[in-house]
């Protein structure tokens, strides 16, 4: 599903964020990406979603070489990836329903289909009753679940999460992670960046560790 081949990313101001990064993630896999802040976790995820391009090396997603992907195809590439952010990136002036519906509206689905799928996604994250609410009226954990519903509503084969539990207490974090496990059970590939090592260690999933932009640990699934 994801293949990094000797990937380097250098920022003019900050220097090298990733250096000589190579790894492969199979379809249907669930993995955690850990490391200190500034280790390059976000950069790695941004390269997969084509929010940025690598300075050197190749990134392949779903068999597609991102280096040769033309500009106008980028939106279609992003539709196959659900992205979840620490600050959840919700639109404060739109209802929960409208926020979750955004990927489907963008993809040009019909009203009925949108309604059906949005409610299914909200049901999965346990927020079906709050579809009319606005994000500000929700708690932090609920907001993050809305963000997750938005990421999975279009049923993308790959979901990326950047510190999804960064602002949540351990109980809520556990809840979010069990949500991710359920998505993984139906075949979704997930890559989750987090520095919540305790939680990650307690779960039976592959862990990729970044240190200063280099891959310094990979449990490779043989935990």
């Amino acid at each position: 599903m994801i293949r990094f081949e000797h990937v380097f990313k250098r920022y003019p101001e900050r220097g090298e964020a990733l250096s000589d990064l190579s790894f492969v993630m199979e379809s249907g896999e669930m993995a955690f990406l850990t490391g200190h802040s500034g280790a390059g976790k976000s950069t790695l995820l941004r390269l997969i979603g084509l929010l940025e391009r690598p300075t050197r090396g190749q990134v392949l997603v779903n068999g597609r070489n991102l280096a040769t992907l033309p500009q106008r195809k980028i939106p279609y590439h992003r539709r196959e990836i659900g992205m979840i952010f620490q600050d959840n990136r919700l639109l404060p002036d739109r209802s929960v329903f409208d926020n979750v519906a955004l990927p489907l509206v963008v993809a040009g689905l019909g009203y009925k289909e949108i309604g059906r799928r949005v409610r299914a996604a909200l049901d999965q994250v346990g927020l079906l009753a709050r579809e009319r609410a606005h994000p500000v009226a929700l708690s932090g954990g609920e907001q993050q679940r809305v963000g997750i519903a938005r990421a999975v509503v279009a049923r993308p084969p790959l979901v990326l999460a950047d510190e999804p539990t960064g602002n949540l207490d351990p109980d809520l974090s556990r809840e979010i992670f069990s949500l991710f496990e359920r998505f993984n059970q139906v075949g979704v590939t997930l890559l989750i960046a987090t520095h919540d090592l305790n939680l990650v260690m307690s779960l039976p999933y592959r862990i990729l560790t970044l240190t200063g932009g280099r891959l310094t640990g990979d449990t490779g699934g043989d935990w």
Partner: protein
Amino acid sequence: MRRRGPKLLDRVGHWLDRQLQIAVETLGRLMRTPLPTGMTIAVIGITLALPIALYIMTDNLRAMAGGWDQTAAISLFLHQDIDDDAAQHVAAQLRERPELARVDLISREQALDEFRTLGGFAEALSQLTSNPLPIVLAIYPQAAHSSSERLEALHAELLTWPEVDFARMDTLWLQRFQAIIDLAQRAVVLLGALLGLGVLLIVGNTIRLEILNRRVEIEIMELVGATASFIRRPFLYAGVWYGLLGGITAWILVNLAVLLLQQPVSRLASLYRSEFPLSGLGPAETLLVLGGSILFSLIGSWVAVNRHLRGAEPG
């Protein structure tokens, strides 16, 4: 493959549905902020109303001047000692000339009558023992021969005739007047183009601010896979709405002005013993105003969108 026809139709129908939906959504968004939207529309309306009003003014002046074409081009005043027969002879000579359309003979009695009824000179004229007025020949040239050079030549020639005491060119001022109107109208068209450019800038700037205000929303839409055209479309529709509503505002302003001026103008006309219906914007002109307004603001929003929305570009 056989199902391609209906499928294509379906897709066109779906596409039209989407466009209509976006247009209505965009209008709804504009309506949610009535004050800034109304102000932008008012600015567009006033900007466009100015050149349109000036154009209508020159158009009406031209129509008014057109009504004066019935005036004789040259009036020939014959010597006092020329009698009616001799005058008829001169008129007959003139009528043989192909470049002249009509020659009217105004006898002394006719001239005196006209003076009595028109000029309010009845009192003074009744004091006269003899008629001091000369015989006048009113000369109307063919349209092809009514240029000022030809009239000047004719005028000069007629002055040399022994029967002629004095010849006056009546239409020269009219031609000058028409030339001035032509010039004014051209200036108005230029002004219109300039103010159209103003509309373009107003809409461009409004759309630019709107894009900056919705930066976060645009970013998120790009994250979830919105295409560049999906993001641009609402802004372009906003431009079309601004143009349409601004154009309608300009139309209302101009026709309101025409309506308000109708009465004073016809009063003025009646003082000159004539009638003059002031004309507003006809259907063709209305379409032109709305079309132009929409075009200018669409270009304005297009420029803003192209400058400030570059699509999903990786850093």
